[in-house]
């Protein structure tokens, strides 16, 4: 049963937009799929290789801008960006990793944070090339969400399968060895610098590809959106932590939960606050309804605290614990 679970889930996801034609939920699912790809990328470098990165937005933005600029300057379909976005992100990751993997632990994380900011400033300042804060607007290729849905699903599935494939190979063993003890790994004949680069480039490729898809789907990007520290880099980390650091399916679960939480707050608990405010006319609720949509970061904070306290290995990593709790709770209920 457990073996077929991903397959069953995949079939449900394939049928979903054909049965349920609500464009809003299709949109949310597309976002989930994009986050699955980004989260899987982050999980490779941070979860499996142990090099925590705050720089995912740099790769995401590079991918998005590659697609956008190709369309904007050369009138090439932005879909070509899907092919080049990942490689351009690798072109950013390569020199960065080559220099910054001399740093370990928190120092590497800080350097990746800087990479994020450097990329954001470059795209803001280089107006002749990127139009700076004006951003880039392209015409979406499809009016319907369904083509995007399937492309995003394909990328999400590719990311998960690819990461699974990598982790079962020699590279996977090397990544885990580096995470557990870099000195021991080196003494076992593992060129740690080189394999950290490999890991970072895999992460950059997946994230860059997701970025290019984001450009195609949204049709508009500016530096604040795609190089955003809290909306992309931190969100990528949260997807990883909530789902389960160092697990194959963790990012998929994490992406679903995080997009749901984000949406929950953005809509003011699905219009609950607005409805209550209209019903009761209370000043407090009117103000709350106004601000709750911007409080998703607060929601993330609470969620992370809960996850770290009760599920330190994430939802997938602690799945047996969750199941165990649930059943023991049921048993107690039956006893009383």
């Amino acid at each position: 049963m457990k073996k077929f679970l991903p397959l069953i889930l995949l079939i449900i996801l394939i049928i979903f937009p054909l049965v349920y034609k609500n464009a809003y939920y299709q949109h949310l699912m597309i976002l989930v799929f994009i986050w699955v790809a980004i989260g899987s990328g982050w999980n490779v470098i941070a979860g499996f290789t142990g090099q925590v990165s705050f720089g995912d937005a740099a790769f995401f933005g590079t991918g998005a801008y590659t697609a956008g600029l190709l369309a904007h300057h050369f009138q090439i379909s932005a879909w070509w960006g899907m092919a080049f976005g990942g490689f351009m992100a690798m072109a950013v990751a390569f020199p960065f990793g080559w220099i910054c993997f001399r740093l370990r632990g928190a120092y590497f994380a800080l350097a990746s944070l800087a990479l994020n900011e450097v990329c954001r400033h470059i795209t803001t300042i280089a107006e002749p090339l990127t139009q700076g804060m004006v951003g880039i607007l392209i015409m979406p290729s499809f009016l319907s969400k369904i083509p995007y849905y399937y492309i995003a699903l394909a990328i999400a599935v590719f990311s998960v399968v690819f990461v699974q494939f990598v982790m079962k190979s020699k590279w996977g063993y090397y990544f885990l060895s580096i995470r557990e003890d870099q000195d021991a790994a080196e003494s076992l004949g593992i060129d740690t610098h080189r394999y950290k680069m490999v890991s970072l480039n895999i992460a950059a490729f997946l994230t860059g590809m997701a970025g290019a898809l984001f450009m195609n789907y949204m049709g508009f990007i500016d530096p604040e959106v795609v190089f955003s520290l809290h909306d992309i880099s931190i969100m990528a980390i949260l997807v990883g932590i909530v789902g389960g650091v160092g697990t194959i399916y963790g990012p998929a679960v994490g992406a679903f939960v995080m997009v749901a939480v984000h949406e929950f707050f953005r809509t003011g608990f699905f219009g609950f606050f607005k409805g209550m405010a209209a019903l009761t006319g209370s000043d407090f609720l009117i103000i709350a309804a106004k601000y709750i949509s911007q409080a998703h970061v607060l929601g993330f904070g609470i969620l992370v605290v809960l996850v770290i306290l009760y599920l330190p290995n994430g939802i997938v990593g602690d799945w047996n614990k969750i199941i165990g709790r649930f059943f023991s709770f049921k048993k107690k209920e039956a006893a009383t």
Partner: protein
Amino acid sequence: MILFEVKNLVKHFGGLAAVNNVSFQVEKGEIFGLIGPNGSGKTTIFNCISSYFPVTGGNILFKDQDITSLKTNKICKIGIGRTFQVVKPLGRLSVLDNVIAAAFSKAKNKHEARDVAMETLEFCGLSHRKEIIARSLPIGERKRLEITRAMATRPELLLLDETAAGLNPTELDEAIDLIKKIRDKGVTIIIVEHIMKVIMTISDRIHAINFGQTIAQGVPKEVSNNKAVIEAYLGEEYAHG
């Protein structure tokens, strides 16, 4: 035949000479003991050999090839394995995965790596523990895992850094047996050890250092009766008495 040679090795940490002009040669197939009181520079020599630190001066030769400036992972690839005094298991991986990760340094594919790992686990007597998560092993088996992992890289020369420290008498005998078994397989061994029972029974030759300098060299009996060695370990009165 000389397999391995250290020539005039010097290592300074700031103004302190941790290793000062140490030279020795190791012949193929022997167990070469390196002894000395705490802080005399034994582990520093190992760290220089496996190039965790750059050396200040001198040369290290392996099979007539200068390996002084090679990177740590290359040192392993050319056939020098090592263990750590403070064991470094890959904590959250199983014992088998620990050894597979090491076996990849010579194996071409995962299938081969797995075979090599299973064979090495069997050889080192850890195969009954292969599914266990490495950090939950007791210290004796962690030390054994260190050796197993180093052996899985198929070394010609094995550097053992205090593998017997912290073992109980039974484990000690097992460790001695294992080291002898590795020697019989044709692997040359350099061993750093404090426990005299181990070093005196298994070493073919012993090199004693103190304050980073050579104080004696020879077969175990000669070294254990050497005045400078007794002085270094027990103090001056014992040397004269």
